[in-house]
């Protein structure tokens, strides 16, 4: 289909302006053919660029990598800052969790409306509910930049399309938003504790059911990340294969929480072993493990990019 | 450059306008100065005139006249369909009053 002149035009596009990116799905076929079409009369500089483009194809889906030796370093340094925020985010998270009187131990769904109202009216509880939920609010959103780093790593994987990174990005938007809805309902319940107990109970129910049962994006995020890891066919994959297995296990651990509204007592109830403890431990473990994995991946990426820049300078 | 003027277009417009004027007469004839009453006759006439107008627009303005037979059949088929649907739903509604 492509004859020679067509190819040359395409190369011109690759070499020309970097922002006019070769697009996500760089024509792997084109690059393959370029590689075998060694007799092509292209200058040294252009060959280098084609090499760059080739790396780009193998390494990821966008041109940010490999083509221009100066930009990647600056970009990764920013990533380190984002990753460096993680301990603070974790601190906010742990303190919110420990401060909220409804988590230690988790409130029972069996509480009557008056008991729920009393819980919010209790002068010992009320400030702790408010402060912890304000912290929790920050935590939800602070998670987004760190989750986005995972998306960026998915883009580096040897995929032919950016679909998986787009899909995970969609999940990144959805998951924390659902936490925010739960958070708002808790804060609403605490805002005027002298409201009718029925109303306080309804906001409490809305908050707990949203918090507990809203796992769809978390499950999808883990499953998609696992798929991305499995599909990353290259000699040195971005994430090791066990990261995929681990994510599937986390996704499975989140399943039971979706059924929390079916029970008032037992492991499925929102204070139960499956819906509360298993789910939240799984999320905590996921955050800890993924940030460690992410740190390793980013450090390796930096090293590779530095090496690559060095090679380019030598050439 | 002098464009050839298609004589059919002004005629089509004239026919459409005259058909529109018919509505003034139908409206007057339906109940004059008296209070409005449901009238299947006026309704049917209004719908049929409207469908004739739509067909003129299809054939002349939208050039279905020169289009492949499939498009002619599709547009005419829709006209039959909407005619049946409109009269049918009106009569059905009137019957279920």
């Amino acid at each position: 289909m492509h004859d020679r002149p067509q190819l040359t035009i395409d190369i011109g596009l690759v070499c020309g302006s970097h922002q006019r990116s070769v697009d996500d799905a760089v024509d792997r076929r084109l690059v393959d053919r370029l590689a075998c079409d060694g007799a092509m009369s292209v200058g040294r500089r252009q060959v280098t660029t084609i090499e760059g483009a080739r790396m780009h194809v193998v390494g990821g889906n966008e041109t940010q990598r490999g083509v221009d030796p100066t930009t990647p370093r600056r970009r990764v340094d920013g990533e380190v800052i984002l990753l460096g925020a993680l301990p603070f985010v974790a601190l906010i998270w742990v303190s919110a969790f420990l401060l909220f009187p409804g988590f230690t131990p988790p409130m029972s769904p069996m509480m009557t409306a008056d008991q729920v109202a009393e819980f919010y009216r209790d002068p010992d509880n009320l400030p702790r509910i408010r402060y912890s939920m304000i912290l929790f609010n920050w935590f939800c959103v602070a998670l987004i930049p760190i989750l986005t780093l995972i998306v960026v790593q998915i883009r580096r994987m040897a995929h032919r399309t950016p679909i998986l990174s787009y899909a995970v990005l969609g999940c990144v938007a959805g998951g924390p938003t659902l936490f925010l809805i739960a958070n708002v309902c808790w804060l609403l319940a605490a805002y005027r504790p002298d409201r009718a107990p029925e109303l306080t109970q309804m906001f409490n129910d809305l908050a707990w059911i949203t918090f507990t049962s809203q796992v769809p994006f978390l499950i999808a995020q883990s499953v998609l990340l696992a798929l991305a890891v499995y599909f990353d066919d290259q000699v040195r994959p971005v994430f090791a294969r066990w990261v995929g297995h681990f994510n599937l296990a986390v996704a499975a651990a989140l399943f039971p929480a979706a059924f929390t509204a079916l029970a008032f007592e037992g492991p499925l109830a929102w204070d139960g072993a499956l819906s509360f403890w298993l789910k939240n431990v799984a999320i905590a473990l996921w955050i800890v493990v993924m940030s460690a994995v992410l740190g390793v991946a980013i450090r390796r990426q930096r090293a590779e990019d530095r090496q690559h820049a060095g090679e380019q300078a030598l050439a | 450059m002098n464009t050839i003027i298609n004589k059919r277009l002004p005629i089509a417009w004239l026919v459409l306008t005259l058909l529109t004027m018919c509505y003034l007469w139908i409206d007057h004839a339906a109940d004059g100065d008296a209070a409005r009453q449901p009238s299947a006759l006026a309704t049917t006439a209004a719908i049929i005139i409207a469908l004739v107008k739509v067909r003129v627009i299809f054939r002349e303005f939208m050039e279905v006249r020169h289009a492949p037979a499939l498009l002619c059949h599709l547009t005419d088929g829709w006209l039959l369909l909407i005619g049946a649907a409109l009269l049918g739903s009106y009569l059905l509604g009137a019957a279920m009053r």
Partner: protein
Amino acid sequence: MTQIKDSARHTRVVPGQPDMWAFVLFEALIFTGYFSVYLFNRAQRPDDFLPYQASLDLRIGVLNTVVLLLSSWSIARCVEAARAGDYRKASLKAGLTALFGVVFFVIKASEWVHYTAQGNGVTSNEFFNYYFFLTGIHCLHLLIGFVVLAVVIYQLRSPLRRSQQLIETGATYWHTVDFLWVLIFALLYVVR
């Protein structure tokens, strides 16, 4: 010139993109649904409709129909002029179409203001629910039609573009706005 035109006439071609005709027919089916629901309800409960319908002014409706028919005529002439290669005239006709469209819109909007001031607002009674719904959704089509006309005029402006197919596609859309109004007019103003 005549020869070219005649040969074009004899091979039967769909005016504009066939895709636009798919839109026209699909949209026509949706409106068939709206109209049927409306006619069924008004035939079933004439008392909720007829007294309020009496406050519509048929003469304004007729005037509006004629204005829209004029606009349809002029876009048809625009297509003819473009086909004959007279692009200046075609632009003029497209502009004239837009002008008639604006006149229609102004009359329509003043009608809305008038009826609302009379106490027949969007939610006042069932007849005016339908009246505002049908004229409103039609007016939305008209507003989209202005975008379409802008595309047509843009096409006509530069010799580099001038895709006859796009011009005909735009004209087909505009005629759709016209024939939908012909039906809406009959169903709202005249039907008993």
